[in-house]
């Protein structure tokens, strides 16, 4: 009974923790411009993150080591260093975007300009990372993130033309007014939003922080195969809400207030309160995860003591990296760069960095030295390799598409 409870809790946390600022921005922007014509990318992306997160969970549970701890010994210190620099910079940019998202959520509730909230949000973020136990932190923000289910409720009560939305799902081409280049650009952004690199760093390191063993393989798999697809459903609901309210009149989404608006229109003030809470929890939870991930990547390359299981003074280098990363994230925002733009840029560079993150996972998950009988099966490898090809295509296309379309135009 207790186990069932903890598994359910884990799945709920995975659902609520799935959406972050990248999904909030990319899905509502895409919904407003393309209707549901790019929804298939979300599905493809969710399957991809499931395939690779399962590998990470398995590596963590069997070898008791997070995947990126193993990258250096398999790829060598040189390549792993390139990998580290790329992954760290992207994670830092994502962290900055998430902090911006937290500040924007608070602005929606208070109407006080987000820049005033940025330092406060960052400070609270750091205090939580410093003091709160790992599991409590994960659970609280994951469960609060479930508030985003309000997008599903809002979609239903908007009573959308389901037939039209359904038709758009199968239309695999850009609508009038959009080009194949913008279609491609948003496809890459959506894909990167679903597969953001920090998610796998965090998932594998989190498994070690929660002391997973072989017994927890089932928990890990249920989190991934049930939690993530349901989280992906929230992303699709977000997209559909924008598709219903904005696409027909040709409104483009470029702010978080627009992301929240469909819920208010459908459900009123109570819905609005819930969606603001959901956006806050989703971005704050993701800020915690990216902040830790920034520390994980560097500490795991050099072999430093990392994580929240030991007293901070015994992982001084790790905590210093986390602290400095948060400060750098704040610095990016204090240049008055629009957090939504920071998010869009972070998605493009996430796409570029995806191969750095995902290739090593596939390599390690096939290593009998670490995994023994739990190495990838044929199906997993077939899927893994297929996704690696897709990831490479997205990575190569990301920058050219960004330049050609001028960040989507």
């Amino acid at each position, binding site marked *: 009974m207790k186990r069932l409870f903890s598994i359910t809790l884990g799945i709920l946390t995975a659902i609520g923790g799935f959406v972050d600022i990248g999904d909030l921005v990319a899905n509502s922007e895409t919904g407003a411009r393309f209707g549901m014509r790019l929804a298939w990318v979300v599905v493809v992306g969710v399957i991809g993150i499931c395939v690779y997160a399962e590998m990470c969970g398995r590596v963590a549970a069997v070898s008791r080591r997070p995947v990126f701890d193993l990258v250096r010994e398999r790829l060598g210190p040189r390549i792993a260093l390139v990998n580290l620099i790329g992954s760290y910079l992207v994670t830092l940019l994502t962290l900055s975007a998430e902090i911006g998202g937290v500040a924007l959520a608070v602005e929606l509730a208070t*109407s006080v300009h987000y820049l005033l909230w940025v330092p406060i949000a960052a400070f609270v973020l750091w205090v939580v990372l410093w003091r709160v136990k790992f599991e409590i932190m994960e659970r609280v923000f994951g469960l609060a993130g479930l508030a985003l289910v309000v997008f599903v409720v809002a979609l239903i009560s908007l009573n959308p033309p389901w037939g039209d939305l359904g038709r758009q799902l199968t239309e695999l081409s850009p609508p009038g007014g959009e080009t194949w280049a913008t279609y491609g650009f948003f496809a890459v952004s959506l894909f990167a939003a679903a597969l953001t690199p920090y998610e796998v760093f965090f998932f594998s390191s989190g498994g070690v922080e929660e002391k997973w063993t072989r017994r927890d393989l089932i928990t890990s798999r249920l989190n991934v195969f049930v939690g993530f697809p349901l989280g992906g459903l929230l992303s699709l609901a977000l997209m559909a809400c924008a598709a219903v309210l904005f696409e027909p009149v040709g409104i483009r989404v470029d*702010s978080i207030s627009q992301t929240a608006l469909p819920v208010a229109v459908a459900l009123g003030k109570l819905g609005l309160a819930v969606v603001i809470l959901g956006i806050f929890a989703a971005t704050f939870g993701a800020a915690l995860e990216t902040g830790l991930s920034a520390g994980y990547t560097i500490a795991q390359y050099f072999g430093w003591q990392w994580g929240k299981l030991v007293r901070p003074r015994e992982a001084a280098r790790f905590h210093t990296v986390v602290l400095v990363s948060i400060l750098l994230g704040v610095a990016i925002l204090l240049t008055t760069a629009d957090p939504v733009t920071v998010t869009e840029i972070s998605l493009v560079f996430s796409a570029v960095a995806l191969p750095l993150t995902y290739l090593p996972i596939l390599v390690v998950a096939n290593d009998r030295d670490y995994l023994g009988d739990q190495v990838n099966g044929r199906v997993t490898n077939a899927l893994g390799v297929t996704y690696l090809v897709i990831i490479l295509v997205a990575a190569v296309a990301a920058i050219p598409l960004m330049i050609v379309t001028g960040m989507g135009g």
Partner: protein
Amino acid sequence: MIVRGWVVAGLVAVAAITAVVADLVPPTEDGYRSTVLTSARDARSAVLTAAQVGDAAQHGRVTTLFVDAAVEDARDEVSTAISDLVDADVPGPGSQELRNRVLPLLTESSARIKDVATAGDDHDALAAATNDLRRLADALGGVS
């Protein structure tokens, strides 16, 4: 290793020169037109969003604090559209005419969007503001 360093330095130099040259090339009528159309399109998005917020406010579906935040976002968008337009060099008389047509619409957009926030709970004021905004959106949509 040294060769690679020079290649990288060369690429950076080329990128920097391209960026500088792109800035110095005199603007064309077509380039200017596309700047104007982009500004008009973005302003129309903001205006229509403000109208939707106004509608929601009339039905008591949003808090005043949210209205303030959303109006602020919409006005930011219009401000960006205005400064993009003002900063671009006008290449010729045709462009000047286009600019004179669009710029007043943009400045009016900013003012009318603000009306949604100042209307508060006043039902009639909100209705008037959203009507104005929809009319403006039509005008912005008609720019070509």
